[in-house]
């Protein structure tokens, strides 16, 4: 009996792993300063609503990184649409600190959120560990350890928010596979039979250069043949590719 009681007390008192609760329960707009040690590295504006969360990290240079919580995940806004943060390999201070404020949305389902008294107390995600401090108004400080680098988020202001729902709308990019295929003009797609293996390539395979110097001339021919096959589609692929990245000729238009 004694054991049962103590076990129950343990369960009630200990931090428990449950679905993540939100940091704010009503629509709010809060501002946060972000520092690494004693150095300020930027500010975050956090918007919350009943349907989603949005954090904008602004670096001193003016560069803004926007993360959105919604559709059961955390998303990063990019020029071509929103991408799930979990698909971006680099864990930068910007994305890490902003993601820590997007609860209840987590970067993956396996992220570990610990709660205490119904509030998030710590959050492990993408190689980072965040711990939360609350005051009477809500979360007031977040300490983040990212691979040994310590970051501190301090709430500097907070008010109710009337941000429109469009601020939280997530517009996912087309699936990576289809988009990349489109951008590359499906260079490696089904062979275009109208393009011969040697078409277009300057001398691709036509000279049959094969000297007895130990070189792998078959590999060279294969490379030239590959590019000759791609050649017809390369121009349109380049146009899309450059437009999306705002580089090359697309930048001049």
């Amino acid at each position: 009996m004694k054991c049962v009681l103590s076990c129950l007390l343990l369960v009630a008192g200990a931090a428990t792993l449950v679905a993540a609760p939100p940091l704010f329960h009503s629509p709010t707009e809060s501002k946060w300063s972000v520092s690494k040690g004693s150095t300020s590295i930027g500010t975050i504006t956090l918007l919350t609503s009943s349907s989603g969360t949005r954090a904008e990290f602004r670096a001193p240079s003016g560069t803004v990184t926007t993360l959105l919580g919604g559709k059961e995940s955390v998303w990063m806004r990019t020029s071509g649409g929103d991408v799930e943060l979990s698909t971006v390999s680099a864990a930068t201070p910007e994305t890490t600190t902003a993601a820590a404020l997007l609860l209840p949305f987590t970067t993956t389902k396996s992220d570990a959120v610990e709660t205490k008294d119904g509030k998030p107390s710590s959050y492990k995600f993408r190689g980072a560990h965040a711990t939360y401090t609350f005051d009477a108004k809500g979360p007031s400080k977040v300490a983040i350890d990212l691979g040994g680098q310590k970051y501190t988020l301090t709430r500097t202001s907070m008010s109710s928010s009337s941000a429109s729902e469009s601020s939280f709308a997530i517009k996912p990019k087309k699936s990576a596979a289809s988009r990349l295929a489109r951008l590359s003009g499906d260079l490696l797609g089904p062979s275009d039979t109208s393009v011969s293996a040697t078409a277009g390539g300057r001398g691709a395979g036509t000279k049959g250069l094969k000297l007895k110097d130990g070189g792998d001339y078959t590999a060279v021919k294969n490379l030239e043949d590959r590019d000759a096959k791609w050649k017809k589609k390369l121009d349109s692929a380049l146009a899309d590719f450059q437009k999306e990245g705002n580089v090359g000729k697309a930048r001049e238009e």
Partner: protein
Amino acid sequence: MHKLIAAAVALSMAASAQAQLGDILKRIDPSKVRKTAKVVQQASHDFTEDEEADIGRVVAARILATYHLAKNDKVQQYVTLVGNTVAAYSTRPTLEWHFAVIEAPFVNAFSAPGGFIFITTDALKQMHSEAELATVLGHEIAHVTQKHILKEIKRGNTISAGVDLAKETSAGSSFLNDEMGEKISKIAYDKLFTTGLSRRDEEEADTIGTEIAAAAGYKASEFLTFLEALQKLEGTSQMKMLISTHPRPEDRIAYLRPKLKDEKGAALAERWDEWTQPLAR
């Protein structure tokens, strides 16, 4: 009077010199003279694009005999798209460029005359943005446009002698023959894998490479980020070859930083992540 004597002496010396020259010319085999003239002509000959491409094939064949193309179509396509984007801003935009990723356990990139550009998988793994890739490819593109390897091959008199020989022995096919192939292959191997090009050529490639990447709209200062990543690898086997064939990263950073101070343009780190996911870092 003095003037007349001087003129008579000068005329007599000239007549004597002419006679001596005539004697010398009589002793020379006319066919040898023609052959020597041909060699001299070829040594200063500017190669046609096709000739340059054949030399490039020899160098590329040597590289591909040692290192295989990475079996990753998505990354091969990506490097081709970025490479062609940058090459369009070089001084030879119409060259038939070939960009390829090769499997190799070290950080490096190579170029061969005629527009063959190779980059190792380990070099890609050190990068964090498309702009870094664009500037590294820009460096290699500059080696091609400035004909750095071609100059080294010419310097070795390989082509001049070889062209002459080849035209006599295998007219109608490639202007190269087995002997020349071996010589070119050896020079290229030494330059690319062992001794490297001159520091002047490397600096020129760094400067032009970043300039054309910037002209294509990339943030050229990302090249410094790549060099800084290489600095951290110094002393490792991954860097051994690059260090023996290029200026040290810190030296390159030192001469490039002032030039790249206010560089704007696209870094495209997110797109880099997206395309290079198949490369396990």
